[in-house]
Structure formats: C-alpha cells, structure tokens
C-alpha cells in the first residue's frame, strides 16, 4: 500500500506542477506526463501486485519493471526539469537546483559510476548471501527494492542525460557504458541460469534467468533509441543554426532560406 500511496503522491505533485505551467501559458508535453504516470504506476504495481510465474520468475519480472522500465519512463517525464520550472523562486527551488548541480550528483551520474551502482548492485544481490537474507527480513527486502529503483533512475539519467546536470558526458562514453552494462547484465542472467540461488525448483530458475536476459535487451534497446534520437535531434539543431562562423550557405534540405545573403550575391 505504501508503494501505491507514494506513486499517487508523486503523480499528484507532477500534475500540479504541469497545471501551474499550463495556467501561466507555458507548454508542457502531455507525453511527458503520460510517461511519468505510467512509470509511477508500473513501479507501484511491480512492488505491490502479485505477478505471474514461479517465485523466481515473478521476482525477475518485478526487477525488470522496477529497475529498468519504470526508471526509463519516470526519467523521460523529466520531473526535475518540471519542478525547476514550476517552483517559485525560493529556498525549495534553490535547494533542488543546488542538489541537481552538485558535485555529489555529478559523481553519481558519471556513467561508469551509475552503471556500477546499478548492475554491480545486482551482482552483489544475486551472487552473495544477500538474496537469501532479503527473504528473511522485510526491511532488507524493501531497501533492496528502493536501491534497484534509485540505481535504475541514476543509470537512465546517466545514459539519456535529459535532466539539468552539472556535466554533459560524451555520447561515446555513454554508449560504451550502456553496452558494457548490458553485457554485465546478460552475463549475470546466464550465470543465474547455470547456478540459480538455492531454494527454487526447476524450471522456474531457468525461466527467470531467460526473462532477465531478454527483458534486459528490451531495456537496452529502448535506452539506445533514446540516446540515438537525442543525438539525431542535436544534429538537426546544429544544421538549422545559421553557419555564420564558417561562412557556409544554408543547407539545401532545411528549406529555410536566409534571404539577405543570396540577394547581395546576385547584385
């Protein structure tokens, strides 16, 4: 129930912020709101609802949603950007901006660090006694869920870089990190197929490991698409920008004539 209450509160705050922007005449894409809403629902359902399959398979479905799909949808909703635009100037807004731009945040969203926290955390969870311990202690279980969600959000922000951050990291570093994290995820999935954690009966661990392997692919492709589309859009903005410094002509495909130059040349 806590999960549903948290999701409801987050979505209510988000909608309040978006409405405030709209009322003063600023645009805020409804697609972002939809993305955030679905992400919040997904995370809550993953934690609180019964999921299909055997115990290990259901656990994997839960982690796929909580650690990968929900974070991507939440981050694409750009809640930090929305909050910074909706909040009035004052302590809260300054605090949020200060946190987002802080050295600590910059360190956490440095792509290799975010990847290590995210996939490294999974390796520690499954390949140490931690996994068994979470089944005995509910608070440890809840903490692991929280870590999976937060690390997923950090990793998504690090790869997609859609929120206001201190540094912008290169597409090469982000792409390489995504591939290496995807590989570490795939290797962990196969290692779980070979030696699953104790206490699950076949074929549940095999199904669960395959769900993890192929489900991870879906998340990796989605992140790669976001990365690629943002690179493409940045290239488009660079093309439309008037090439004053190089003295170049307007690009033939953009169809935006910059009129003064041709008339002068004709004369």
């Amino acid at each position, binding site marked *: 129930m806590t999960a549903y209450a948290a999701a409801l509160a987050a979505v209510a705050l988000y909608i309040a912020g978006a409405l405030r922007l709209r009322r003063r005449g600023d645009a805020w894409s409804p697609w972002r709101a939809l993305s955030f809403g679905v992400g919040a629902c997904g995370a809550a359902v993953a934690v609180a609802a019964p999921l299909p399959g055997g115990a290990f398979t259901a656990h994997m479905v839960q982690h796929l949603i909580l650690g990968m799909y929900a974070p991507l949808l939440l981050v694409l909703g750009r809640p930090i950007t929305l909050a910074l635009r909706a909040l009035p100037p004052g302590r809260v807004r300054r605090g949020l901006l200060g946190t987002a731009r802080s050295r600590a945040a910059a360190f956490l969203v440095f792509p290799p660090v975010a990847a290590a926290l995210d996939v490294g955390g999974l390796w520690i969870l499954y390949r140490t006694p931690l996994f068994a311990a979470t089944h005995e202690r509910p608070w440890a279980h809840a903490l692991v869920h929280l870590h999976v969600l937060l690390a997923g959000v950090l990793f998504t922000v690090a790869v997609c870089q859609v929120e206001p951050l201190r540094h912008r990291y290169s597409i090469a570093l982000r792409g390489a990190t995504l591939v290496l994290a995807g590989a570490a995820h795939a290797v962990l999935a*196969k290692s779980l197929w070979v030696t699953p954690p104790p206490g699950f009966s076949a074929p549940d661990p095999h199904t669960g490991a395959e769900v993890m*392997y192929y489900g991870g692919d879906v998340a990796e492709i989605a992140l790669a698409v976001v990365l*690629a589309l943002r690179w493409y859009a940045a290239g488009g903005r660079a093309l439309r920008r008037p090439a004053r410094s190089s003295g170049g002509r307007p690009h033939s495909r953009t169809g935006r004539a910059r009129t003064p130059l041709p008339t002068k040349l004709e004369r």
Partner: protein
Amino acid sequence: MASEESALSPGRSIWAGVLIGVGVAAFLDETVFHQLLHWHHFYDRSTPAVGLVSDGLFHAFGWFATVIGLIMVADLVRRSGLSGRALAGGVLLGAGAFQLYDGTIQHKILRLHQIRYHVEIAPYDWSWNVIAVILLLVGAWVLRREGRRR
C-alpha cells in the same frame, strides 16, 4: 559542397553499414538458431567464463550497433550524403565479420555453444564459416568497386 560530401560520406556510410551488419547477423543468430530452430542452446554447460563474457558483450553490442547504425543512416540521408553501395558493402563486411568471429572464436575456441547437437558437427562448422568468408569477400568487392567509381 560536393567535395565536402564525398570526403565525408563514404566512410560514414561504410561504418553505418558495418554496425547494421553486425547487429543483423547477431539478431538472425538469436532468432533463427536459438528461438526458431532451437539448434543453439542458451547455455550448454561446457562454456568457460570468458565465453559467457564474449557472448554477453556481443549480445549487448549487437542491439546497440543496430540502433546507432540506423540513426546514422537517417543522419546521412538528412545531409544528402548517403552512399547506398558503401552502406551495402559495410553491411556485408559487418555481417561476415560477426559470423566468422561467432563461428571460429566463439563456437570453437571459447566453446560458447555448438551450431547443433547430436550430429556430425564438421559440415555445419564449414558451412557457417565459408558463408562468413563469402560475405566478407563480396563486401570487400562492393567497396572496392565503389572506391574505383569515385
């Protein structure tokens, strides 16, 4: 403009093709041999750790390469700098290179999994790797002809 494009485009078209080729070969391997035919095994219990790492890397890289290769093609079209032949040559090179790596290093040296089980494996291995070399040769030939035309 024309000189700038010919300096920029064939190389980029080739690289976009190589990325797409690696991705398509990895995708076909996964769907045809793992999912449809069930010849390959998810894991055959004789693979050393380094084989799993190599498999994981290429599995993850294949998807990423496909997405990045396709967006590079879109970017080249937008800049009217796409060379179709260079792209095709790149696709053949990428697919052939992945197929050869998969057929020699991954299947034979790292013993990731075999092409098929409970059969005489040699004809399968030969077919697999000869097809890879043919893809590489045709790709190289397409790119050579394309280079001469310029």
